């Protein structure tokens, strides 16, 4: 088994670009990305850079123990998140997972919100109730995930079913990891969406691992795109580290959904270069695998080459974006650090529409806050997203 562990075993690794090309060929006529304006091309870089730099900032805060709970990275997966979300329109809705910070940013999530979430601040989007990037905003078009993997698939089936019932030309996009494809919720959700021909795009992010579990122990299929065959829907595979290829394959599926032709499953080949969460030392990863992906297949480096070599973007334009990103993150960090922690009694607000607030337990009446604080729990870094 061990030998089969990790993506390399299944011939991924250094040159998935070819697969990406494969998916490009599928496009009728010119690739959708051929229509991107120069600004949009630069924008894609901006989102990827913002995603990476924001996570790096979070790592600093985590090391300073300013982050409450675990920290999750999408290092090396930025193209998959950004390129796919970029294929949506404003009115469309996506359901991100823990590796989809980039998707949320594209959809309008603010760095300051993200940092406040990680710092459990009272003015964070969930007012300190939920962890890390577990939040959403229907107006901006992203919905908050829960930890239980697979559950967002049926939920997005319902979201897109409502689009269909109301004849709105809107599309839904749901992300699942390679590991989450094993859940019953994934199965029940896609199957129902396929029968109902919901305008739904399902993106399976194949990053080689589910926590420590390689795909060889997750499923006996070789290509996750073949899961589509069980639902009578198209399944395609693309290079998840080629942001333009991701944009192309997603855009085609989104257009198809908007045309009322139903569900598409997309497998994006990528690689999780960091551990499941910051605490995970990746001891289970074959030596050299991470380094090789970093060296040969970093999505930001690859896109930088496309920008400078193929699209004629000047170094100083890139530098300007980088500067803007750092500046935005600095401002967000300052704002988040200045934010207050929640008022304890806010915990009693908003469990139901009516009553809007529940009564404190009798022995807590008048008590503003809990009396004994607790130190940071051992091992809490292992909490999952």
């Amino acid at each position: 088994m061990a030998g089969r562990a990790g993506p390399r075993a299944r011939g991924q690794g250094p040159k998935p670009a070819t697969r990406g090309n494969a998916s490009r060929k599928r496009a009728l006529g010119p690739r959708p990305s051929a229509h991107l304006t120069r600004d949009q091309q630069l924008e894609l870089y901006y989102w990827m850079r913002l995603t990476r730099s924001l996570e790096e900032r979070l790592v600093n805060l985590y090391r300073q123990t300013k982050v409450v709970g675990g920290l999750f990275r999408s290092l090396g997966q930025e193209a998959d998140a950004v390129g796919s979300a970029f294929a949506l329109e404003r009115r469309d809705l996506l359901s991100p997972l823990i590796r989809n910070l980039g998707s949320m940013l594209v959809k309008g999530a603010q760095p300051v919100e993200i940092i406040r979430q990680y710092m459990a601040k009272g003015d964070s989007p969930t007012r300190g109730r939920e962890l890390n990037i577990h939040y959403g905003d229907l107006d901006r078009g992203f919905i908050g995930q829960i930890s239980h993997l697979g559950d967002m698939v049926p939920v997005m089936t319902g979201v897109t079913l409502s689009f269909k019932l109301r004849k709105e030309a809107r599309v839904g996009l749901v992300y699942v990891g390679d590991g989450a494809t094993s859940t019953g919720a994934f199965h029940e959700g896609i199957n129902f969406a396929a029968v109902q021909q919901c305008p739904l795009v399902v993106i399976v992010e194949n990053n080689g691992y589910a926590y420590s579990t390689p795909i060889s122990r997750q499923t006996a299929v070789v290509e996750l795109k073949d899961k589509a065959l069980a639902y009578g829907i198209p399944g395609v595979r693309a290079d998840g580290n080629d942001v333009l290829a991701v944009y192309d394959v997603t855009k085609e599926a989104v257009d198809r959904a908007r045309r009322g032709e139903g569900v598409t499953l997309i497998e994006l080949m990528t690689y999780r270069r960091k551990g499941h969460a910051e605490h995970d030392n990746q001891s289970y990863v074959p030596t050299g695998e991470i380094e090789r992906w970093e060296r040969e297949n970093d999505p930001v480096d690859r896109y930088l080459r496309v920008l400078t070599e193929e699209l004629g973007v000047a170094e100083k334009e890139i530098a300007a974006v980088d500067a803007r990103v750092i500046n935005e993150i600095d401002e967000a960090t300052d704002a988040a650090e200045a934010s207050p922690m929640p008022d304890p009694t806010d915990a009693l607000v908003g469990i139901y529409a009516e009553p809007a607030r529940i009564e404190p337990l009798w022995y807590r009446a008048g008590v503003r806050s809990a009396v004994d604080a607790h130190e940071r729990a051992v091992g809490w870094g292992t909490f999952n997203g």
Partner: protein
Amino acid sequence: MAEITYLEAIRQALFEEMERDESVFLMGEDIGAYGGAFKVTDGLLDRFGEQRVIDTPISEAGFVGAAAGAAHMGMRPVVEMQFIDFISCAYDMLTNYIATSRYRAMLPCPLVVRGPSGGYVRGGPFHSQNPEAAFLHTPGLKIVYPATASDAKGLLKAAIRDDDPVLFFEHKYLYRRIKEELPEGDHLVPIGQARVAREGKDLSIITYAATVWKALEAAEQLEKEDGLSVEILDLRSLLPMDDAAIMQTVKKTNRVMVVHEDTRTGGVAGEVTARINEQAFEWLDAPILRVTAADVPLPYSPPLEDYVLPQTADIVTVARKLAAY
């Protein structure tokens, strides 16, 4: 106005709410052309069409989750479990995703999950369940379990209009056994209010669903044979629970019995007892006694089922003990 059954009352509620609000739609197994295993949704497909009466694959987690997604977008889904026993397959979706939605994500999730529940019908262990206790400790959910046709209609209409997720349990033993005239017009029963099913002064029976009728039978007998005046409180709503009404009857009779059809350990009666104990301990002249099913999966053969489930005679026995205490 004609008398209608508990089952027809439920169908009327669905019909009226679908007429009133086009965001209301139904999902479930065999609810369309077939009209549902118990024919509760019979005729609704013809009236409202396939867009609003949707036959689903056999995937309770899938379509309950889909109901949540649709509810987020402003729809008002009403989901049928072919038998409520299958709600266990959607347990994660209901307790983790749906119940927490408003609190953790400020995302309203107005939906109703309904279905035939309860025993006394030789349904065996998987077609007779009373799942209320499994959801009682899930903040964010509401739970109702009507005992009369009038409450079935009024509470279902209220549940569909409620801005939070409601579990609506229907007792299949009552579907076609009870009939009554319903109030004219837009009949709503507010969630969270208990109902005094019978006035009395000597002792109180707190119960809900089918056992309300067993309690009424027992009360008649106790009146005749023992001259005891029994008050019966039908909770109707389990979450939220009507503490005021509970304490009122406790303070009136000072002797309390809690009756439910569900198994004893971990059942709703424990919660009721704890609340009385905290809020009206001083008024108790006797221990609060529970009449419930025995702690086993419900067996199917009539002699076994009748032995396991609470019966009128049990209520009579316990009431006498309570009165004599």
